C-alpha cells in the first residue's frame, strides 16, 4: 500500500504491517490504521504514521530508554480489548510532544501494541504521571529513593 505523507513523502507499507487502533486515539478518533516507521537518523525514535491521513504522524519512543524508572501500571480492563493478559507481551511506546522549547513525553497515556495481533490502543496508566514529562539532561529520578 502506498501512502503520501507530509513528513516522509511517498512510502510503501505492507498490509501486514498495519496496526489497527479500533477506537482511534483521543483527539484523533478517525485515525484507526497506523504504520510504525523507524526514524531515518535516530534509532531511539519511531513514528506512528496514520495510514488514512498522510498529515498525521506521532513521534514515539520506548519510555524506559528515556525514563529508566518508569513503571507502567495499566488497569486490566484497558488491556482486555487488545487480548493482552500480561503487559510484557506488548510493545509499549509513549508519544513525544513539545512545550514549544523542550521535548516532552506523555507518560500518562502510553500506547500499547499487541505486535502479534497488530492491534493497538492508547491507554491511561494508573498513578501520578505527567502528560508532559520534560526531557532535560539533568533529570532527577521519578521517585527519590529512601
Amino acid at each position, binding site marked *: 500500500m502506498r501512502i503520501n505523507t507530509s513528513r516522509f513523502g511517498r512510502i510503501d507499507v505492507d498490509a501486514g504491517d498495519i496496526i489497527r487502533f479500533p477506537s482511534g486515539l*483521543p483527539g484523533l478518533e478517525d485515525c484507526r490504521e497506523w504504520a510504525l516507521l523507524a526514524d531515518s537518523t535516530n534509532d531511539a525514535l519511531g513514528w506512528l504514521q496514520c495510514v488514512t491521513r498522510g498529515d498525521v504522524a*506521532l513521534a514515539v519512543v520506548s519510555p524506559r530508554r528515556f525514563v529508566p524508572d518508569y513503571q507502567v501500571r495499566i488497569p486490566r480492563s484497558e488491556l482486555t480489548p487488545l487480548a493482552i493478559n500480561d503487559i510484557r507481551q506488548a510493545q509499549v511506546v509513549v508519544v513525544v510532544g513539545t512545550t514549544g522549547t523542550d521535548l516532552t513525553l506523555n507518560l500518562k497515556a502510553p500506547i500499547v501494541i499487541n505486535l502479534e495481533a497488530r492491534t493497538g490502543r492508547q491507554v491511561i496508566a494508573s498513578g501520578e504521571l505527567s502528560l508532559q514529562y520534560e526531557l532535560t539532561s539533568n533529570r532527577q529520578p521519578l521517585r527519590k529513593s529512601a
Partner: protein
Amino acid sequence: MLVLSRQRDESIMIGDNIVVTIVDIRGDKVRLGINAPAEVPVHRQEVYEAIQRENLRAARLEPGDTADIGRFANRGSGRPDDAPR
C-alpha cells in the same frame, strides 16, 4: 440532558450492558461504580480531554523538531539492568 435522581446503591442502565451505580455520597463528592463491556472505554472527562489536547499538539511535531532527542536516551534496551550505572 437527561437528569435522574438516584440514592446510594441505586443504578442507572445505559443501553443493555452498561450499569452506573451510586456507590457513596459524601459532601460534594459522589463515588460511582461503572460496569461496562471491556471494549467501552471509561475515563474521567478532564483526563480524556487533556490527552486529546496533548495528542493534537504532538501530531504537529516534525522530524526536525526531534532531531536531538537521542541525547536524552540511555544506551541499551532500556531495561533497568542495562541502564548506565
